[in-house]
């Protein structure tokens, strides 16, 4: 039976749902159930159907092709439902299970068919023919389910054509027999369509076409008016072709246009039925075309190793199947031998070996010797630093003080954008019990970062300081061991009405002279603080505005009781007065100074003469104590005595090249040691023992030899502006103080660079002083502290001076940004005298 028939049957059975569901389902189910046998009755039925349709077609000779189809579908099924069932049952009973017998079976069936339609000779022939065909077609399709489904596609395509062929095979008898029933059903179901059928002008000839051209490309017939030949060898004419307009019209008129396809073999239009469409849809979706097909039906293993009670097949097993194969035995023997000999290995062994090879084997890498430590390795390897160990804050149950409080939490949240600024890298959390501790979510990340550090971070050796901060502070002897030094303020000398600019002790240390802005020079008793004498030197001859005393300095010579006072442009040499010095000394001084010594041959040049003039002391001034007076062309800022007391060195403000003037008292002569200005001279001092003079300009101190008249040394202080300086009584050390808060110690033996720079003060340092006997020095300035330091100079040249700050003494209150203006040590006692800005002198002991 041809496959298209079965397809036809299926299609029909699908459409019959409304009318006779019971009749169809039986064949359908049998069809899907299991393969071959079930198809057979269906096919038979199909044959019947085909004959039926022909009846109808004969009846409705002039009906349209498509319409006809529809009619045929609807009507034939309903009428022949009963017959089909009968046939089915009869066939099913007679069928055998083996597929081999199918062809015979089908032949039989076709035979049956012939019997059915035995009335006409012509139809007989035809049906036999068709039966043969169908048998040929069926044999492959019956082999398996899968092939069956595969072949459904071609079946559908060829269905219509074959149908028409079947129609041509119909006999008059069948028409007669069935005409009535068909009509009745037709009328009942679709009366309107019947009418339409006649209206269309198509002939029925076109429908019952069947080409016999075979499987040749149809375009061979493109140039011919026919498309092939029918069974009788007559040409089949090509149906009239429609052009686009026709197509369009048809599209507009025909509601079924969308499901009309053209059969390439015959050139006829075929309308796809609902079932066809369903089929196509299923195929598109990749399902089995048959909707009732069950893909998951249980698989029955017929041919298994189980021995069944009855054999499945009708012949006994071959002897071969009982006897072991000799060749196989030989083969196995060879393999076994090879395995035994180790020529081959089993797959398992191979896999095992491979695994073994892959597995890491550990052994004693560091042998017992460990001698070959001199292996090659990294150059100057820097081991990676270890991770810091955790503190209490990281604990799962930290002490409460480590948990962040509200304030810290706020800060924590604020730094969410910049987490590296946070106090901890983690949030300290407290968990009540161990089992409540969750996994740390950044753990993997932290490990990863560590890995990155290990291979990516540049390493360098960084020296870690093992010292504490206190180790940086120089180790110095305790001040207690360096006593005596002044520790407290013992006396205040009050009497001045302005700033006290300058103070000095007399060589014995019994008296004090001071000079200040009030224009007076006062002489005090150092032990009691009593003011012995007040010399008003600053009032000036004109009685005009008073001039302050810039500087006082007691002459060092004990044989000559003189003190120098710088008052404006004048340098006055005063007699301290009776009661202060022994009368004998005072008398001698007066006698010496009364008359000017005879002029010597040395002539005073004009430059010196214009700089300083030895004035004649008027009697009233003599009475006031002035013994000598020198008038300079600029105000005097600094006065210093030579150690022997014969020379006085005077520094003039803005004196340029004539800023330093040396006066010799015995000869009443002045000298200008420098011919050129080397800067702004701050002060000048005589060396205590040697003929040297120290001249401090703004930044450097120059040391000149007065005998050789040359520059001996230039001391670079490093200070911005030198204020004052003091020479150590030994003469080898110099202390320079500056307005930029420094005290600079020079060891003249050592170098022209500072030996030590002391920054002991908070403000400008205005004065420094060395004690003549004790290893002490003091410095003071604009801050309220006077610093007393130990400055030991050793005779041993190899030993450097030892400087130890000992004590900070509180000076008086500050006045006009100034505090202490000058310091002096007592010549014998460790007493310190300070000239303060609050118009007092303070003595510390």
């Amino acid at each position, binding site marked *: 039976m041809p496959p298209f028939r079965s397809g036809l049957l299926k299609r029909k059975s699908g459409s019959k749902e409304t009318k006779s569901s019971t009749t169809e389902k039986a064949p359908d189910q049998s069809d899907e159930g299991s393969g071959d046998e079930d198809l057979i009755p269906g096919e038979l039925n199909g044959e019947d159907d085909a004959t039926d349709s022909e009846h109808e077609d004969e009846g409705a000779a002039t009906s349209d092709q498509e319409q006809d189809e529809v009619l045929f579908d609807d009507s034939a099924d309903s009428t022949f439902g009963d017959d089909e069932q009968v046939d089915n049952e009869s066939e099913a009973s007679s069928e055998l299970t083996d597929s081999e017998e199918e062809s015979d079976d089908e032949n039989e069936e076709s035979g049956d068919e012939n019997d059915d339609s035995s009335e006409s000779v012509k139809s007989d022939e035809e049906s036999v023919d068709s039966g043969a065909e169908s048998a040929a077609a069926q044999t492959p399709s019956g082999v398996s389910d899968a092939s069956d489904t595969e072949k459904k596609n071609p079946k559908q395509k060829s269905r219509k054509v074959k149908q028409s062929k079947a129609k041509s095979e119909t006999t008059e008898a069948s028409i007669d027999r069935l005409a009535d029933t068909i009509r009745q059903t037709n009328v009942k179901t679709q009366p309107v369509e019947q009418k339409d059928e006649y209206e269309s002008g198509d002939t029925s000839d076109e429908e019952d076409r069947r080409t016999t051209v075979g499987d040749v490309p149809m375009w061979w017939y493109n140039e011919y008016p026919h498309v092939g030949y029918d069974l009788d060898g007559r040409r089949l004419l090509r149906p009239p072709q429609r052009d686009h307009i026709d197509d369009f019209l048809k599209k507009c008129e025909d509601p079924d246009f969308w499901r009309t396809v053209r059969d390439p073999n015959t050139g006829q239009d075929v309308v796809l039925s609902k079932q066809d469409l369903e089929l196509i849809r299923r195929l598109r979706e990749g399902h089995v075309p048959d909707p009732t097909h069950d893909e998951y039906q249980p698989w029955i293993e017929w041919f298994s190793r189980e021995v069944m009670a009855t054999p499945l097949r009708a012949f006994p097993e071959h002897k071969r199947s009982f006897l072991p194969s000799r060749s196989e035995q030989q083969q196995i023997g060879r393999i076994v031998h090879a395995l035994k000999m180790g020529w081959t290995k089993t797959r398992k062994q191979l896999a095992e070996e491979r695994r073994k090879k892959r597995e*890491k084997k550990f052994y004693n890498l560091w042998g017992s010797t460990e001698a070959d430590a001199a292996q090659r390795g990294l150059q100057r390897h820097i081991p990676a630093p270890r991770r810091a160990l955790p503190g209490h804050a990281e604990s799962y149950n930290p002490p409460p003080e480590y948990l962040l409080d509200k304030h810290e939490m706020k800060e924590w949240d604020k730094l969410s954008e910049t987490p590296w600024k946070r106090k901890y890298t983690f949030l300290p959390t407290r968990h009540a019990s161990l089992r409540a501790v969750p996994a740390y979510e950044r*753990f993997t990340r932290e490990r990863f970062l560590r890995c990155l550090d290990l291979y990516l971070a540049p*390493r360098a050796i960084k020296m870690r300081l093992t010292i504490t901060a206190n180790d940086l502070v120089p180790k110095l002897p305790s001040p207690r061991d360096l006593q005596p030094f002044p520790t407290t303020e013992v006396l205040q000398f009050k009497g001045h009405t302005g700033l006290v600019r300058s103070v000095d002790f007399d060589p014995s240390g019994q008296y004090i002279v001071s000079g200040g802005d009030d224009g007076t020079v006062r002489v005090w008793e150092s032990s009691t603080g009593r003011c012995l004498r007040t010399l008003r030197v600053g009032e000036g001859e004109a009685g005009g505005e008073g001039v302050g005393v810039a500087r006082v300095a007691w002459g060092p010579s004990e044989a000559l009781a003189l003190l120098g006072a710088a008052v404006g442009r004048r340098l006055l040499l005063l007699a301290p007065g009776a009661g202060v010095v022994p009368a004998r000394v005072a008398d001698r001084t007066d006698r010496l100074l009364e008359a000017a010594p005879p002029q010597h041959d040395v002539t005073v040049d004009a430059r010196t003469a214009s700089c300083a003039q030895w004035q004649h002391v008027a009697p009233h001034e003599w009475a006031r104590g002035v013994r000598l007076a020198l008038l300079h062309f600029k105000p005097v800022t600094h006065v210093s005595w030579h150690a022997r007391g014969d020379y006085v060195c005077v520094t003039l403000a803005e004196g340029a090249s004539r800023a330093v003037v040396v006066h010799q008292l015995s000869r009443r002569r002045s000298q200008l040691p420098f011919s050129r200005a080397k800067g702004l001279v701050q002060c000048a001092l005589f060396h205590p023992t040697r003929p040297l003079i120290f001249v401090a300009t703004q930044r450097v101190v120059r040391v000149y030899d007065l005998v050789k008249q040359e520059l001996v040394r230039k001391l670079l202080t490093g200070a911005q502006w030198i204020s004052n300086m003091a020479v150590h009584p030994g003469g080898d050390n110099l202390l320079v103080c500056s307005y930029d808060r420094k005290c600079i110690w020079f060891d003249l033996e050592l170098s022209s660079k500072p030996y030590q720079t002391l920054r002991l003060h908070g403000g400008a340092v205005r004065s420094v002083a060395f004690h003549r006997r004790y290893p002490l020095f003091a410095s003071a300035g604009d801050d309220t502290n006077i610093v007393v330091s130990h400055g030991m100079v050793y005779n041993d040249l190899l030993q450097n001076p030892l400087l130890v700050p000992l004590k900070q003494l509180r000076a008086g209150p500050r006045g006009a940004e100034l505090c202490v203006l000058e310091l002096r040590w007592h010549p014998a006692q460790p007493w310190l005298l300070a000239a303060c800005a609050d118009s007092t002198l303070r003595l510390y002991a």
Partner: protein
Amino acid sequence: MVSKKKKKYSSGEGAQFMTRKAALKKLQLSLKDFRRICILKGIYPREPRNRKRAQKGAGGIKTLYHTKDIKFLLHEPIIWKLRELKVYQQKIRRARAMREYKTMKKYLRDHPQINIDHIVKERYPTFVDALRDLDDCLTLCFLFSTFPSLKKVPRDQSMLCRRLTVEFMHAVIAAKALRKVFVSIKGYYYQVELEGQTITWIVPHHFSFQPQSKDEVDFKIMSTFVDFYTMMLGFVNFKLYHSLNLVYPPKLTSAFSADTDKDLIDEHVYVAERIAAMNMSLSRVEGANDAEELPEMDIFNTEDEDPQKLEEAKLEAEKVKKLKTMFKGLKFFINREVPREPLVFIIRCFGGEVSWDRDHFVGATFDESDESIAYHIVDRPSMDKQYLSRYYVQPQWVFDSVNARTLLPINQYLMGAVLPPHLSPFVDKTKDQVYIPPEERALNDPDFKPLDGNESGTDIEEASDEDKDDEEEADSEEDGDAEAALAKQYQQEVEEDSDSDEDDSVDPEKKKLAKEKKKAMAVTTGVPHKEHPYQKEIEDKQAFRLREKLVRKKHRNLYKSMKAGQEKRKKEIWLLRKKRRLHDEKVKEDKKAEKRKQKVQALEASA
């Protein structure tokens, strides 16, 4: 003859360093391969002294390697292996592209492996060197042992990590080398002492693995590290077992044998297996004496050593010896909710016996009903069935006991009790300026009374010996104020003294008269000279402040920054102390309120 001009950067720092790009070019490696070989060989960039010169004048910041390091790499046989591997990879790729899956499979199966034994030896010429560098190795291996199979982490790698870590823990147990433990929020810190080297590692808490985003963590790099670390740990394990007279590889539970098909067992089962494995004792090499104790430490009278130091060292050794057998003969039972792994490890390390619920986990050695159990470790507030013969303690007791090196009294750690804080044993107490919480101070000093007593926070502060120094320093910082205050105080005292002498006189006028009279007589009762109590300190401080000014200019900034650091630390300590005080006060208040409430309630009830 004109001498040839020396090319710039051909000597000195310019020739010493090499940028990464130049290194790649020299080695003919891709960056990926270079990274790998750097990790394996332990090559790292170096920080030059003068970057500009080291970069041959180029600007910016470049990764610089020592030229000698790169030359060292040049002779590494592994480089050739890497190149071969590249070719092999191409073969696999080709087979895949040609759809020759069989060949591809074969290639994949026979994928060559790189042997890095010699690198371990090269990087760590001696065993001690390897031990010294074991921190990162252990931490990473323990992390990897918790990893599932990832794309970049082959499964056998994490399996190997599991095996090796368990083996190492066994070695630690056998050597009784554990010294300190700490439960942090990141994981469990363990510190062991092997061959005189302290090794610290972290074991993460359970479920530590979380999928990481690609830019957060690159597992490929970590995997390369683990490649090397597993090798290293394997050799270290072998040597350790060897030195402990143990058989290597040890026979552990089936989960750790290499050919297991249980790769797919889930995490819980694996953890249970691991813990069970830890509870087994290892087989010893035959003929090895079991009780091998360290000999008593001898005291050598060397001149350079401080006798006090020696004494201390001896004490320390004694303590460690005690610690090693701390749990000996004690039986512990771990309740089911307690994280078992750390506890089993610790208890076994100190010679205790441990077991757990047989029904829940494998490997239990004795039952809960065993009467000889001394400690039952629970981590829940209460239990239905309790045995009288044992203590029910919380797990923190074990950790704290280990860190304290004695069995601590259990009263604070009983079941359901609020635990005292768990303190880190890693804080160096010998350093100055370290905040020591009161709990720890109480541990060290039995006389010290922490918050339990009636003392308030201020007392706590006073009781501290260590603080004194800080306070002194604090005084030295405060400019003159303290000094002035002291002086004032002294003045007041003196005045009071003198006042007390003259208290009897009532009338000021009379007093005046008496005074005058006294003056007239010119004899006064001598007032004993009172030494200023703080005089010396004040003087010293003044002197120090003066000396401070003599710090050399070179060191002045350093000194300042050191002082600033000290200041900062002091502030931190101050803050912690303040927070603690506030907290204690609050707790006390709460307690009082609670008591009052109870009293009121009792009164009401009675009424």
